[in-house]
C-alpha cells in the first residue's frame, strides 16, 4: 500500500500528449455527435491509428506475446484521454476486456492479432456486468454455440467475439468470428452512442474453445481490469466537464458580472474540483496497484469503481446546469459527456454493487 505512485511518469505524460493530439485532430465533438443520427458513422480510422499505428491495443499484452509490455498505469492514461474526448473507439471492449480474458485464458493467436491492432475483439457479456463470477447465458453443444447476450459493448465493431460459455463441466471461453454462420449481431440504440452496444445471438455457431479450464478466472480478471480502467475513463470525463465549465463561467456574463464571480457557483465548483481530484487519486491508485499485482488491488478497484462513476455523472450534470440553456442544446457537446458518464456509471457494475463487494473485502458485513 505504501509504495503506490499516484503521479504520472514522463513517459506516461508523453503518451497522454500523443493520444490527446490524435483525438483533438480526428475526434472532434461535431463529428462524434453524428453517431446519434447516423449510427454507422465510421471512426475505424481513428481506432486503427490508436490501436495499430500507435501500438496501444497491445499495452496490456507482454512483449513475448506480441504486445507493448506496458500495464494498467499506461492503459489508464489512454482511458483518461478517451473519456476526455468521449472518443468512440473500442479500447475498453477490445484492448482491455477481450484482450485480458484471452491473455488470462492462455490463448496466444487471437491475442497477438488483437495486440497488434489488426483485429478488433469484444468480450461477449452485457456491458453492465459487475466484477465477480459471471453466469454465462451461452451454451455449447454438438452443433456449436447457442444463446443470446444483450447489450454487448463493441460487438458490432469486432472481428472476433470472445464468448464466455456455460459448458457441461463449467465455464469455458470461446472465440468466434463475428461474420461467421450462426452469429447475429443486432446494434441497439444506446443512451450513449459513443460506446455502441449490440445484442448477440448464437444459433449452432461453430466456435473455438481457447481456455484450459480457467475460463471463470479469465473472465473475472477481465472484469476486474476493466473496472480498474473504466474509473480512469470516468476521471477523464469528469475533468473535461469541470474544465469546460470553468472556462464557461469565467467568460459568460450576466448582471454585468462573470458567472464565476457568484459565490453560489464558486462554492459548487470548488466542491466539484475536490471530488474530481479525489476521483483521480482513487483511479490512479487502482491502476497502480493492479499494475504491481499488489494484494490491495481488489479493494483499490472497488473503491475507484464505487467513487469515480458517481463523480463523473455529477460533473456532467453540473456542467449542464452551469451552462444554463446552452448546456441543453444538441449543438453544445455537454450532452455527449452526460450520456457517456451515465452509461459508464452502469457499466461493469453500479456503485451500489461495488460498495457491496467492498464491504465483503474489508469485513463490514451488511447484516448481523
Amino acid at each position, binding site marked *: 500500500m505504501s509504495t503506490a505512485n499516484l503521479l504520472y511518469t514522463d513517459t506516461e505524460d508523453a503518451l497522454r500528449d500523443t493520444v490527446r493530439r490524435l483525438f483533438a485532430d480526428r475526434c472532434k465533438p461535431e463529428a462524434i455527435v453524428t453517431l446519434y443520427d447516423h449510427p454507422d458513422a465510421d471512426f475505424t480510422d481513428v481506432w486503427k491509428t490508436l490501436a495499430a499505428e500507435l501500438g496501444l491495443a497491445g499495452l496490456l499484452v507482454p512483449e513475448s506475446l506480441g504486445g507493448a509490455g506496458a500495464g494498467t498505469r499506461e492503459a489508464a492514461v489512454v482511458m483518461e484521454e478517451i473519456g476526455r474526448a468521449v472518443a468512440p473507439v473500442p479500447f475498453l471492449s477490445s484492448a482491455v476486456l477481450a484482450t485480458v480474458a484471452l491473455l488470462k485464458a492462455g490463448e496466444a493467436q487471437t491475442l497477438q492479432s488483437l495486440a497488434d491492432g489488426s483485429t478488433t475483439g469484444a468480450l461477449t457479456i452485457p456491458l453492465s456486468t459487475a466484477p465477480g463470477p459471471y453466469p454465462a447465458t451461452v451454451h455449447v453443444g454438438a452443433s456449436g454455440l447457442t444463446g443470446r447476450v444483450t447489450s454487448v459493448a463493441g460487438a458490432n465493431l469486432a472481428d472476433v467475439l470472445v464468448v464466455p460459455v456455460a459448458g457441461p463441466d463449467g465455464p469455458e471461453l470461446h472465440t468466434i468470428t463475428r461474420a461467421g454462420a450462426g452469429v447475429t449481431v443486432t446494434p441497439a440504440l444506446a443512451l450513449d452512442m459513443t460506446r455502441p452496444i449490440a445484442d448477440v445471438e448464437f444459433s449452432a455457431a461453430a466456435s473455438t474453445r481457447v481456455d484450459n479450464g480457467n475460463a471463470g478466472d479469465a473472465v473475472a480478471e477481465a472484469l476486474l481490469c476493466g473496472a480498474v480502467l473504466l474509473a480512469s475513463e470516468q476521471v477523464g470525463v469528469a475533468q473535461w466537464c469541470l474544465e469546460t465549465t470553468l472556462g464557461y463561467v469565467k467568460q459568460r456574463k450576466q448582471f454585468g458580472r462573470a458567472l464565476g464571480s457568484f459565490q453560489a457557483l464558486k462554492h459548487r465548483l470548488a466542491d466539484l474540483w*475536490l471530488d474530481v481530484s479525489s476521483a483521480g487519486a482513487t483511479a490512479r491508485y487502482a491502476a497502480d496497484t493492479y499494475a504491481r499485482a499488489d494484494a490491495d488491488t481488489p479493494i483499490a478497484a472497488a473503491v475507484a469503481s464505487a*467513487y469515480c462513476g458517481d463523480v463523473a455523472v455529477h460533473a456532467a450534470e453540473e456542467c449542464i446546469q452551469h451552462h444554463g440553456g446552452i448546456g441543453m442544446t444538441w449543438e453544445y457537446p455537454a450532452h455527449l459527456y452526460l450520456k457517456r458518464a451515465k452509461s459508464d456509471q452502469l457499466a461493469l457494475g453500479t456503485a451500489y454493487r461495488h*460498495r457491496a463487494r467492498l464491504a465483503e473485502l474489508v469485513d463490514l458485513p451488511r447484516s448481523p
Partner: protein
Amino acid sequence: MTLDEQSIARDLDTRVRQLLAAHDPAHTDPREFLEARFDAGLAWIQFPEGQGGFGVPQSFQEQVNAALAAAGAPEPAVAKNGIGFGMAVPTIAAFGTEEQKRKFLRPLYTGEHIYCQLFSEPGAGSDLAGLATRAVREGDDWIVNGQKVWTSGAQNAQMAILVARTDPNVPKHAGLTYFLCDMSDPGVEIRPLRQITGEAEFNEVFLTDVRVPDANRLGAEGQGWRVALTTLNFERVAIGSGAPREGGMIGKVATAWRAQPELRNPAMHDELMRLWVESEATRLTGERLRQQRAYGQPGPEGSAIKLAFARLAQAISGLELQLHGEAALRYDDWTLCRPEAVDMTGRGPGYRYLRAKGNSIEGGTSEILRNVIAERVLGLPPEHRVDKDIPWKDLPR
C-alpha cells in the same frame, strides 16, 4: 544513490554516532539530549548550521529519526507543541532573521517553549485581516492591547505567534505586523472558554499593555498578513494530514460495526460504505498531494483536504450516533476540563459528534476554504471586497 547522496548519508551516520557517543540516551536528561541533537544539526537537517540543521535535503531526515529512535533517544514533543512545530517553525524559518532563528528554534525544539496562536478575535474570525488588537511602538518595544480568542493551550504556552495592528490608517491587510510574544508577560490574562463538548479546549486571551521587544517582530512592520498566510497554509496542511486507512473517524464506526453485530442495520450499510469509500478517497487525495509537493511548500490545495476531512468527520460521527442507538442517548462527561491535547476521535461517540462541528470552522471555515479553492486553484474572480481600499480605522464595525 548518487555520490553526493552517499556522502550525505555517511555524514549523517557519523553525526548520529557522535551524538549518541557523547550523550548516551539512557543516561542523559531528555531536554539535554534534544539540545545536543539540535546543536549537532540533526533536528531539522535541511536548516543551516546553528539552526538545528546543516543544510542537507530534508529527505534524509527519516534516516536520522529512525537511527535515533532505534538507539532509544528521546523524541521532541511534537504532539504537545503542535502549533510550535506545525506553524511557528516553518514561519520562523521563512521570515525570521538569522538571530531570531538561532534564538527561537532551539528552545522550541527542546520543548522549553510551547507555542500558542494569538490570531482570531471576537471581531475577526473569517475576516482575520480585520483584527483590532493594537501594537504601538515605544522605544525598542511594542505595547500590545486587545483580546484574542480560540487559543488552544494558552495556559501551557511560554510563547505565542501573534498578529497585531500596527497601523490603523492604512487598509486592513497593510497595517498588520507579526510577533513572537512571551506569554509570561504580566499583561497576559488567560480565561478558559467552555465549548459545546463541556470541556475548555480553548481560551480567551486578554492582552493589556503587553510588552513585546521589536527583536521579536517576524518580517517587516506592515508585512504581518503575508507572514500570517504562511502560518495558515501550514495550519491547513497540519489539520488535513492523512492517517492510514480507517485511521480517522471512519475507523471508529467500522470497529463498532465489526465488534457489535447486533448494531448492524442493513438500511445503514450502504451509507457506511459510501462514507468508507469517501474516507479512502480523501486519504488517497492527501497522499497524492504529499507526493506532488514532495519537498515543496504547502499550497492552496491543502485547503481541499481540510474541507473533505471536515465534511466526512461530521457525516461519519453523525452516523455513528445512529448506529449506537440507545447507548448514544448517553454522554461520557460534561464536566469542565482542560485537555492537554485534543483527540478528535477520542472519547465517546457523543463527544466525537459535537467536537466534529468545529472541524468546518477552525483553521478556516469550509466556506472560506471554498473561496480559496475557487480563487487560487480554479482562477475564478475574487469576492467583491468593499473594504480593501479603505483605511482600517474607517471600516464599519
